[in-house]
C-alpha cells in the first residue's frame, strides 16, 4: 500500500530530525545538527534492507516517489516565500558580502574536487554512468 511508503518516509524524517535536534541541544547550539541528512541515510539504509527482503513492494515505493517527485514544485514554493525584498534592500555591504561568499564557494568546488582525486589517484573516476539508471 502507498501509505506504507509514506509512513516509512515519515518515520525516517521524524527520527532524523529528532536526532538532529537532540544533538543540537546536547552540543548547546540552537540549530538542528544534520537532521535531514541523518533522515536521508536512515531512509537509504532501512529502505534498501526492506527491499532486499522483498517487504517494500512497488506500491509502497510509489508513496516515497511521489514526495520525491514534487520536490521541485515544493522548492519553487519555497523560493516564492523568500525575503527577496529584504535581500535586495539590505544595502551594498550585505550584497557584496553575500556575493563574495558565493563566488568563493563556486570557485572552491573544482579545487576540492581535484584535490580529492589527487589524494587517491590510483582510483578510476568513471563510476557515474552505471547507476544513472536508478535515478530519483
Amino acid at each position, binding site marked *: 500500500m502507498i501509505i506504507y511508503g509514506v509512513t516509512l518516509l515519515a518515520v525516517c524524517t521524524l527520527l532524523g530530525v529528532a536526532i538532529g535536534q537532540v544533538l543540537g541541544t546536547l552540543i548547546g547550539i540552537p540549530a538542528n545538527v544534520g537532521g535531514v541528512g541523518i533522515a536521508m541515510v536512515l531512509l537509504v539504509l532501512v529502505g534498501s534492507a526492506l527491499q532486499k527482503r522483498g517487504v517494500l513492494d512497488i506500491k509502497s515505493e510509489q508513496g516515497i516517489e511521489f514526495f520525491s517527485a514534487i520536490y521541485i514544485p515544493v522548492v519553487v514554493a519555497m523560493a516564492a516565500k523568500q525575503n527577496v525584498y529584504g535581500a535586495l534592500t539590505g544595502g551594498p555591504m550585505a550584497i*557584496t558580502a*553575500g556575493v563574495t561568499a*558565493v563566488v*568563493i564557494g563556486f570557485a572552491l568546488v573544482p579545487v576540492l574536487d581535484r584535490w580529492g582525486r589527487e589524494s587517491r589517484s590510483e582510483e578510476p573516476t568513471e563510476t557515474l554512468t552505471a547507476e544513472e539508471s536508478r535515478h530519483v
Partner: protein
Amino acid sequence: MFDALLKVSTTYSMVVGFAVIGLIMWLSYWLSAKLTSGRIHGSAIAILCGLVLAYIGGVISGGKHGLMDLPLLSGIGIVGGTMLRDFAIVATGFGVNVQELKKAGISGVVALLLGVLSSFVAGVAVAMAFGYTDAVSLTTIGAGAVTYIVGPVTGAAIGASSEVMALSIAAGLVKSILVMVATPFVAKYIGLNNPRTAVLFGGLMGTSSGVAAGLAATDPKLVPYGCLTAAFYTAAGCLMGPSVLFLAMLAITGHH
C-alpha cells in the same frame, strides 16, 4: 465578495498553493521550451519566477515572507514550508547510491569546514572594507555570510547590535538567493554534474534552501547528495561562529 474568496483561500490554503505553483511550473516549462528551446531548464525558470513573485509580494505587503504574506496566497507558505521541503528532500534520498556517498565522505567533511570558513572570511573581509573594525560586528557579519541563521545566532551570542544583525541576515539572504539563481548557469564551469561534486557543493555553499533550489534547477538527480552535506552546514556554522571564529577575530583585532 473579497471576503468570500478569502474564506475559501484560507480554508483551502494548501490547495491554493498547489494550484498556483502548478501554474508557475507549467508557464516556466513552456517558456523554457519556447524561448530558450530547453537550454535554460524549466525548473530554473520556475525558481526564478518564484523569487520574482517573492520580491513583488515583499514590495506589496512589506512582510518578510514574500508571496506568502499576501492574504490570498498564504498557502504557498505551507507547500514551500520547512515541513514539506524537508519531507521531499528526504524522499529524494531514496535514490541515493550509498557507494557514491561513502566515496565522497571525507571530502564532504572537508568541504563543510572549508565552506563555513571561506564564507566567514569573505564576509569579514567585506565588512572590513566597509569600515567595521570591532570583533563583534566583524564576526556577526562574517557569520551572516555563512547563512542567515548562523548570523543572528552568532550575533546574539556575542552581543552584536541589532543593526549589525540585520546586515548579517541580509548578507545570508543574498547568498541563499544567489545560489538558487546562479547555480544552474555556473554548474558546467565548476564540474557540478556528478554526485561527488554535488556533495562538495552542498558542503561549500551550505545554505540549505540555496543548495536545494540550485541543484533542483541544475539536475534533480544531484539533489540528495548536496542536501545531505548542506544539512550539517548551519549547525557547523552555529558551532564555530560564537566560539573559534569569534576568538580568532578577537585575536586579529587585538581587543579583549
